[in-house]
């Protein structure tokens, strides 16, 4: 019989109230290592989405012309939100690998690794959104009360990303190549989600399939909340319920699987 007695296994853990602090410290130190204590290093990571934006903007605004109003904002917001999803899911596996030695020796709740990793990406997201804000002000857009819907979409995006990250990290120690496989899926997802192109160029009959992807709904919704004359029908309660439902299911599945498999991380990593 394996001891599953809650009161006993919990008493062997460090003080519960410090887990939040532990999460922040891991995120903070990981961040420091990644950018080698330099502001320049961090600016470089901010440049990545901007370069991507610049390239795509050149191709699809100068070479090919989509008929989209405020295409700059449209594209930038799509890239920023998708990048967050990609970063959380991919980096959490990297952090898990990097913390293997600690997981083998110290007993602490395993979800701390995934949450720490998501915090680092969250910081990048916020800084990216500041860049977006600058573009937003330069363009003629005005502030609206409906802009605040963005925060609900960010919450949905966070739940979705962390759920997916938990799912991937749960499988990672047993299937290391899932990282590479997921990289391909992220690329694929970037193109089947209306990030670069307007949804109007896609034949109506595919829309229901495209919007099965909660990320597509989140991105379209965020655009409608922020950019004038962009999208319709995404600021409805129905849309939020659908997104929350799908993201919730993914989170629940990811979390359960992670909880189940993380017990043997110490043996597999």
């Amino acid at each position: 019989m394996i001891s599953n007695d809650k009161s006993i296994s919990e008493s062997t853990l460090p003080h519960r109230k410090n887990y939040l602090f532990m999460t922040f410290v891991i995120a903070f130190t990981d961040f420091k290592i990644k950018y080698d204590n330099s502001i320049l290093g961090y600016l470089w990571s901010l440049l990545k989405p901007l370069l991507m934006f610049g390239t795509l903007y050149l191709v699809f605004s100068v070479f090919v012309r989509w008929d989209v109003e405020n295409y700059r904002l449209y594209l930038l917001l799509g890239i920023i939100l998708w990048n967050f999803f990609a970063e959380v899911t991919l980096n959490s596996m990297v952090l898990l690998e990097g913390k293997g030695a600690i997981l083998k020796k110290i007993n602490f709740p395993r979800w701390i690794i995934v949450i720490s990793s998501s915090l680092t990406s969250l910081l990048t997201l916020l800084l990216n959104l500041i860049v977006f804000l600058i573009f937003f002000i330069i363009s003629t857009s005005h502030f609206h009360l409906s802009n605040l819907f963005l925060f609900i979409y960010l919450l949905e995006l966070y739940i979705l990303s962390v759920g997916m990250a938990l799912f991937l990290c749960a499988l990672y120690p047993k299937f290391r190549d899932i990282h590479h496989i997921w990289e391909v899926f992220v690329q694929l997802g970037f193109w089947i989600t209306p990030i670069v192109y307007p949804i109007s160029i896609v034949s109506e009959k595919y829309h229901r399939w495209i919007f099965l992807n909660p990320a597509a709904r989140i991105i379209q919704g965020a655009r409608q909340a922020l950019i004038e004359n962009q999208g319709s029908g995404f600021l409805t309660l129905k849309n939020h319920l659908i997104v929350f439902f799908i993201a919730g299911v993914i989170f629940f599945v990811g979390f359960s699987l992670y909880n189940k498999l993380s017990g043997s991380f110490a043996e597999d990593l």
Partner: protein
Amino acid sequence: MIKVENVSKVFRLPHERKYTLRQRFVSIFQKNTYEKFHALRNVNFEVKSGQFLGIIGRNGAGKSTLLKIIAGVLQPSSGRISSDGPIAPFLELGVGFQGDLSVKDNILLYGALLGLSRQQIKDKYDWIIEFSGLERFVDAKLKNLSSGMQVRLGFSITVSVESPILLVDEVLAVGDIDFQKKCYDAFNKFKKQGRTIIFVSHDLVAIEKFCNRVILLNEGRIDKEGCSDEVLSKYISDAR
């Protein structure tokens, strides 16, 4: 108090370990063969509060596995562990250290991993620096320090955790004479404070000096248990 009841641990060691989906896919029709390795077989013992328990045995006898199970890092295949207080969850010195961070940041990271709060780390910080003797290197990157210094830092942080139960795995093997003396002093202090310690070591002198009780593990079983002289003399005579 720590109670270890009927704990067994079986590792399945595959002949060929598959880490990726590709490997699994390629060998889809191959049979998965593996060796069963009984690291621990029905281990039973109890450590009372304030006791200093030593665990000795040959390499591969299951000492570290046992310690990891008590720490909660590994799950036992069967049996159960219970304890009445938090266990300082460290097994090896400096496990969470990051070479690219400064000594200061490493204290923060390692302390947090051991379950300390921000305030506790703040309170202990000066003491840790002093005890490890690294006053001059606070802002240096850890990788630029000698391995001895790193171990000293690890030990100092671990010792500063005021957990009533400590698990110690082979820490005295490193460090110079001065540092070993510091460690001994720290152990003596723990003893006076009535902390419970489980101590795995090949350093028989230290075992004899500190432990009230010693367990000799052999191929996952408890070979002998009792006061340190008896168990040590059996261990030594077995080796002959």
